[in-house]
């Protein structure tokens, strides 16, 4: 049933300009107010996405000029799917996703619990301190860590060298300075940087979820003789499942698109450690802007999209039921 806007007429029988304008406003004002977002989204969001999809079926060297691309069908996709460099970068991305993603949550959940239970007086201050890395620029962080990880004079190696002198721990640590910027080791350096940067964010998320758990559940459990650890395991964890779903989704999507930290730590691709730390997005960027192959880069982007979609679907399967309130 469509509601029609009746145009008031004056006594003369036909609507005046002022009245027509007023009804026009009433009818279309909502759309006009919402339009800035849609216009910007169309120009900067939708159009580039569709153009990139179109480009993934063309071969184009951008410096050749606009329009100078030629249709190649699925060739870019078959090329990328059989490209060892691409699969190496996907492996790096997944490795980083797992080994920097899981520790973030493993640290964040108990930390949020401790902040909630024990440090609730300093809660705001402590959360703010842990949250600080998240709001700092990724590039700035990566640049500083670049210096911290330096082989001969970096702080991290100096600390390890010192710890080497301790009796028990010393046996576990390597004797020589670790060269972090080799293909084999760069992954660990990157994982450390990412964990350091994002644990605070997850702590904040979990803290807000823990605060939503009603206190009487804990009191009832305490009355029944449950220790803090048992309370954590049987009350907090299950009730955190919806938040875990949300936080893990964000971690998956964010880690699969990790770009700034590898790009800075690998010196834009100039570092010898690049094959061991290059993520899929970094490989895509370099394909586009260093080797000037736009079509191939677009195909990488869309293959990555499919991959993230699959992972999100799996995440949905594992945590999704809890998020929708059932269990």
């Amino acid at each position, binding site marked *: 049933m469509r509601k029609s806007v009746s145009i008031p007429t004056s006594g003369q029988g036909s609507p005046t300009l002022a009245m027509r304008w007023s009804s026009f406003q009433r009818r279309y004002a909502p759309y006009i107010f919402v339009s800035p977002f849609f216009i910007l989204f169309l120009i900067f969001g939708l159009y580039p996405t569709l153009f990139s999809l179109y480009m993934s079926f063309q*071969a184009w*060297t*951008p*410096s*050749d*000029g*606009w329009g*100078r691309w030629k249709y190649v069908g699925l*060739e870019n996709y078959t*090329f990328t799917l*059989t*490209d*060892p*460099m691409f699969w190496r970068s996907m492996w790096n991305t997944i490795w980083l996703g797992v080994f920097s993603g899981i520790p973030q949550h493993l640290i964040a959940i108990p930390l949020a619990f401790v902040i909630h239970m024990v440090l609730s007086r300093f809660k705001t201050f402590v959360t703010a301190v842990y949250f600080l890395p998240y709001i700092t620029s990724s590039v700035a962080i990566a640049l500083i860590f*670049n*210096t911290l990880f*330096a*082989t*001969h*004079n970096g702080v991290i190696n100096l600390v390890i060298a010192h710890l080497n002198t301790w009796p028990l721990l010393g046996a576990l640590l390597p004797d020589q300075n670790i*060269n972090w*910027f*080799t*293909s*084999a080791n760069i992954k660990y350096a990157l994982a450390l940087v990412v964990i350091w940067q994002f644990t605070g964010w997850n702590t904040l998320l979990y803290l807000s979820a823990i605060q939503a758990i009603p206190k009487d559940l804990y009191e009832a459990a305490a009355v029944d003789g449950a220790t803090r650890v048992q309370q954590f395991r049987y009350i907090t964890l299950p009730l955190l499942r919806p938040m875990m779903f949300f936080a893990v989704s964000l971690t998956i999507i964010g880690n699969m698109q990790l770009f700034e930290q590898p790009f800075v730590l690998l*010196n*834009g*691709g*100039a*570092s*010898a*450690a*690049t*094959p061991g730390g290059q993520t899929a997005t970094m490989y895509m960027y*370099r394909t586009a*802007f*260093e*080797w*000037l192959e*736009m079509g191939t880069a677009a195909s990488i982007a869309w293959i990555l999209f499919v991959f993230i979609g699959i992972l999100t679907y799996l995440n949905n399967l594992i945590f999704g039921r809890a998020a929708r309130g059932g269990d």
Partner: protein
Amino acid sequence: MKQIPSLLALLVLLGLGLAQKTTLTVGVFPNLDDALKAQIQLFNKKYPDVEVKLVIQQYADHHNALTTALATGQGLPDVAAIEIGFVGRFAEGQGFEDLNKAPYNAGQYKRLFTPYTIAQATSSDGRFIAMPVDIGPGTFFYRVDILQKAGVDPKNMMTWPGYIAAGRKIKATTGAFLIADASDVAWINIFATTPANTSPYFDAQGKVVVDSPRFVRAFELAKNIRAAGLDARVGAWTNEWYDAFKKGTVATQFSGAWLQGHLQNWMAPETKGLWRVQQLPEGMYASWGGSFYAIPTTSKNKALAWELIKFVTTTREAQVAAFKAIGAFPSLLSAQEDPSFNEPIEFLGGQQARLLWRDAARRVKPLKANKYDRIANEILTQALSQVLDEGKDIQAALTEAKRLIERRMR
């Protein structure tokens, strides 16, 4: 009263006429911009009505911006500085004016330049798209104090085996590393042994040649250095690299002549007088870097842009001004005859290094640019790193590299 409107019109026209200055935009990156600023001062003496506006971005951003501007045909400057890494690929596109044609007729100027630079800016179908403004003749920097302490004569380092043997002695007696990164030695060998007028990675027919003996030898030399523990395993242009120069933990470095300017100005000024230079071992001559200026086809001031480019590349005073400003080695042969070339360089302990560099520049073989050069470079870098860091067999690594490069050529 009727005359007032026409009077006003006349005044407005006069005003416009007085303000009639043409603006030329030049896209450039540091520190080439310092050289250009010095040259513009001289340029404005000849062309006082031209305002040259510089759009300065860092090397990577500058070339990214050029790439996107070329892709859309919008936002290109009147003159674009292009560095050696990108000139080959940009030449293949249609974004820049062919300077062989009228009204530029650059053919008449080509013989004025160091020969190898012309091939670099020429596309595979013979279009010459950029004029060379500076070059980087490769040279061998060494710390004379460290060598003296180790009892090594620099002349004995003029063969690669001799170089490595000296390195062992240096490490044993002084503890200093021979070189920052063993892969440098591989690259010198690859570039310097390329036959004239071919690309390093492709032969005259465009086939991939990275599994040929000269590549094997290059990789072997690097592997020997790495196996003997003689390199510091520090990447170029990292903080650790600068530190190695400051602290004297590295005895030699191969680079373009321009490294002397960087060392002197900011990397390790306190090591003044401790460095010397000589030619690369085994009569090898190679080029490190090099900048060019091109005119985008979308420019509205092509004639004026060409005047500026001609001025900074073919006039001796402009080339010498750039040389004095940032140590940019002139591409113009006559500028290399300037008396300042005989001056001793204090930073190098009074050595007349410029004569050495001039000689080296004249002997660098011209290399052709191929549009797959950058990706071939990347793949070969990865192969080299697999050999050095992961102990992969050299022949296997090169065969794999050849396969990877070939599959990208489509």
